[in-house]
């Protein structure tokens, strides 16, 4: 296996230097170009380590095992750049010769671990899903036995195994292989368990192959990529383990050049000041272990097609959205609008804009539906209004005025005061919006107290009243509940209670009924609209479903690829659509209205 890898890497190296004349090499160059500079450096070091491991003893400047009493403990100089050890042997030469045994032991031991662990893993994974009870029981017992084996600390287990069978490279190989095979067994087992759910596995069984045969022939090959990542990491650990064993005298013993033993022999000189004897072997050992671990990452990265570094989403830093590039469209908003969006443009750095020149006004108590196909920018618009862009998204131009104040210009503190008390979100999949480790009551109390000065008890009572007001009986029970105890509809009702508790002038809803079943959808929507109406809150309601818009909204804006292509009173837009997207949405809505929500009729039931 390692030889294969060496080959592969050499080829990769070679081809990157040569011109891509052969089409076969092109994919290799493709791989190389997908690596970051850091990864390339790791790859080069990796190849160097393998080369040194292969030819080290033959290229060492001095013989690595011949003592020279006249040159004992010479500090680093020109002849001996890393000094000499207590026997007068050049440290550099020993360093060049030493990785061979460590890497060799680690590679052989890891190969052995895979050879034992992988087939057992297939069997364990296969037995675990078997129909026969006895088989499942065997699998379970194997895993419990592994638990016990793994309860013995790896290093101690290896140490004892070597102690029992005597020191020497062969016994170290067996010990290292033995302590590592459970890792592969578990890994392959879990891979098999998830892979056997796939259709092709079922198809292969249906075609008359035996399940175990399918496990080995079809599933195991698919598990290899994951295993390969682990192999690289394990080889690194195995090198460390081998060196550790040699360090305590339970591994490879001198005079064979070996890194752990070199450190052991240099230990006493560390105290007396001859640091070079032990220092360099340790650095090299660290480099080897690190390189193998990093290679695991790289292999993993290359195995996943199309996985490029995703710009990390920096939540809290949104506070610092870049100031608008141009002060275009900063025209004062309509006099008493709650929300005015002016020429808003959002882009991911370097990509075409996701929203472009979006403008609209929202009057108090008004409900504006924002519709569009999936991916048209609805959610981004909602997030932009809440100033919670994230995802490496940036506001490129435009403004969001809330009651005449430009939200982008507010400082962190003012923004926090407005968010949650005057602008409230209602987001899709309410269950995932609630922190799984925070009780509903704690969230509501914290939210109430964030915007009102009151005691914990008062806040609690108010939360209970609010839950009662939206028709949740037994409020105390639900306040003490954790989110996982709530149904999707209940979670969305809780979010609704949170949204309304401060009687905000503006609610921003994004697919508030996503993930709920149809009957609950209607209940939640009816409740939401009714309560908004009572408290006079204006609303932006982003949704895919025109039925909802027709039923609940005053005005509608149709969003297509980041542009508002049509906007107007619901009746006008729906009865006389001017844009193709609107027509498509209407066609789809009619279908859906027939199949799912019979009471929702596009033309008749409209809010005046």
């Amino acid at each position: 296996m390692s030889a294969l890898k060496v080959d592969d890497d050499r080829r990769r190296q070679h081809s990157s230097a040569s011109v891509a004349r052969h089409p076969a090499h092109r994919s290799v160059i493709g791989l190389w170009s997908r690596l970051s500079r850091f990864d390339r450096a790791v790859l080069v070091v990796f190849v160097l380590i393998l080369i040194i491991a292969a030819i080290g003893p033959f290229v060492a400047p001095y013989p690595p095992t011949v003592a020279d009493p006249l040159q004992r403990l010479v500090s680093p100089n020109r002849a001996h750049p890393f000094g000499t050890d207590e026997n007068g042997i050049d440290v550099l030469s020993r360093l060049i010769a030493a990785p061979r045994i460590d890497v060799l032991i680690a590679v052989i031991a890891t190969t052995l671990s895979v050879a034992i662990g992988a087939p057992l893993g297939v069997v364990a994974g296969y037995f675990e899903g078997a129909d026969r009870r006895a088989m499942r029981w065997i699998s379970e017992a194997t895993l419990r036995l592994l638990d016990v084996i793994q309860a013995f600390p790896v290093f101690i287990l290896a140490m004892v195994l070597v102690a029992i069978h005597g020191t020497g490279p062969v016994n170290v190989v067996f010990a290292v292989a033995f302590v590592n095979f459970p890792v592969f067994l578990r890994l392959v087992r879990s891979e098999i368990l998830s892979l056997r759910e796939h259709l092709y596995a079922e198809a292969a069984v249906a075609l008359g192959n035996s399940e175990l045969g399918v496990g080995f022939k079809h599933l195991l090959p698919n598990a290899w990529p994951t295993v390969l990542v682990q192999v690289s990491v394990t080889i690194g650990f195995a090198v460390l383990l081998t060196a550790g064993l040699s360090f305590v005298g339970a591994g490879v013993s001198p005079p064979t050049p070996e890194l752990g033993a070199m450190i052991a022999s240099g230990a006493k000189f560390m105290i007396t000041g001859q640091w070079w004897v032990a220092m360099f072997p340790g650095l090299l050992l660290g480099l080897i272990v690190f390189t193998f671990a990093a290679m695991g990452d790289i292999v993993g990265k290359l195995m996943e097609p199309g996985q490029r570094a995703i710009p990390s989403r920096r939540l809290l830093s949104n506070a610092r959205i870049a100031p608008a590039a141009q002060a275009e469209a900063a025209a004062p908003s309509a006099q008493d609008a709650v929300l005015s969006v002016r020429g808003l443009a959002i882009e991911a750095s370097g990509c075409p804009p996701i929203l472009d020149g979006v403008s609209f006004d929202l009057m108090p108590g008004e409900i504006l539906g924002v519709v569009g196909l999936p991916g048209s920018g609805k959610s981004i618009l909602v997030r932009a209004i809440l100033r919670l862009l994230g995802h490496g998204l940036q506001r490129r131009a435009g403004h969001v005025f809330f009651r005449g104040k430009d939200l982008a210009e507010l400082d962190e503190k003012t923004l926090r005061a407005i968010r949650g008390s005057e602008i409230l979100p209602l987001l899709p999949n309410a269950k995932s919006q609630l922190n799984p480790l925070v009780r509903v009551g704690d969230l509501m109390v914290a939210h109430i107290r964030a915007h009102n000065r009151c005691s914990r008890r008062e806040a609690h009572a108010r939360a209970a009243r609010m839950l009662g007001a939206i028709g949740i009986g037994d409020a105390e029970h639900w306040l003490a509940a954790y989110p996982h105890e709530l149904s999707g509809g209940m979670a969305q009702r809780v979010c609704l209670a949170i949204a309304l508790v401060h009687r905000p002038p503006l609610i921003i809803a994004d697919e508030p009924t996503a993930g709920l079943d149809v009957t609950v959808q209607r209940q939640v929507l009816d409740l939401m609209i009714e309560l908004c109406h009572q408290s006079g809150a204006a609303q932006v309601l982003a949704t895919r479903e025109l039925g909802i818009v027709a039923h609940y909204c005053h005005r509608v804006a149709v969003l297509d690829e980041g542009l508002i292509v049509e906007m107007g009173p619901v009746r006008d837009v729906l009865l006389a659509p001017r844009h193709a997207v609107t027509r498509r949405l209407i066609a789809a809505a009619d279908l859906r209205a027939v199949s799912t929500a019979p009471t929702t009729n596009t033309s008749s039931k409209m809010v005046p």
Partner: protein
Amino acid sequence: MRTLKYVGRRLLVLVPQLFLISIVTFTLVRMLPGDPARLELGPLAPEEGVELLRHQLRLDEPLPQQYIAYLQRLLQGDFGRSWVNSSSVAQDLLVRAPATLELITAGMLIVLVIMVPIALLSASPSRGWLARATRRVSFGYGLLAGALPDFWLGLVLIFVFFSVLGWAPGPEGRLAILDLPPARVTGFYVVDALLAGNFDTFRSALSHLALPAVTLAFVYGGPIFKMVRASMEAALRSDYTIYAESLGLPRRTVLLWAMRNAAPPAVVVTGVVAGYLLGGAVLIETVFNLNGIGRYAVQSITTADYAPIQGFVLVAAAFTVMVNLIVDLLQFMIDPRFSARAS
């Protein structure tokens, strides 16, 4: 009530686990070539003595009886005798265990008090100088941790802080050669010296503990550090944190809640790491000449003294099983979803 039930069930699992561990240690010695009685008495003992012990240990009986006899002796606290210094292994382990526990505790304290906060800070996307500095630190540490061998790192620390700077004592054990150990209460010299009000001894014990504990923390804190950082980052990026932000909750609350979410995976990894700690203690004790059970095991291996090895392996495995138990209980307490699944 639910908690009690879970604890009870979890404790029940412990019994077969310990049982299996005793079987493994038993077979470990049977795997040895040669006669266990001879191994226990050493190569120098006379044949009559070996014969007598063989009979005492009931080694002349079939294997199952031998195992039962072994189990009986274990339950009586009899771990056999070391032939090198002819002392009781149980006694030896008991005397040395506090040194190892002190090292492990101190190392984990460093992880908890210094490294975990750094990990949490480096996960925060804030642009303050502190967050930026911790991000640098954590990047560098992430590269080094897990790659640097603990025994070598200990030596480097000795070289820098003892040989060059002279800030720390050399690898001479838990106290300076002339210091007397404090009266034994907990067995932790640092604690005992404080209890006895002996500040010189306290300072000496602490300074002797510092480098080994730092070594342990640096090497074995790596996975904990990475996990805390990764799970904190995930928590800060999650939907529920964004929602909490959009509700205008105080920043402190948002961060505290995210930390709550980061805790369960961190606890699991800490449990896994704790399983490796005894193995790590073996090497670190050897480097710093600490008279703990790890060094005892190494010495026993070099002298082929099997009773101590067997005893140590048993203790180490039991320790890991106990750590797993504590981890499971902690998870039960922290994570309501886990407790819902478990019960």
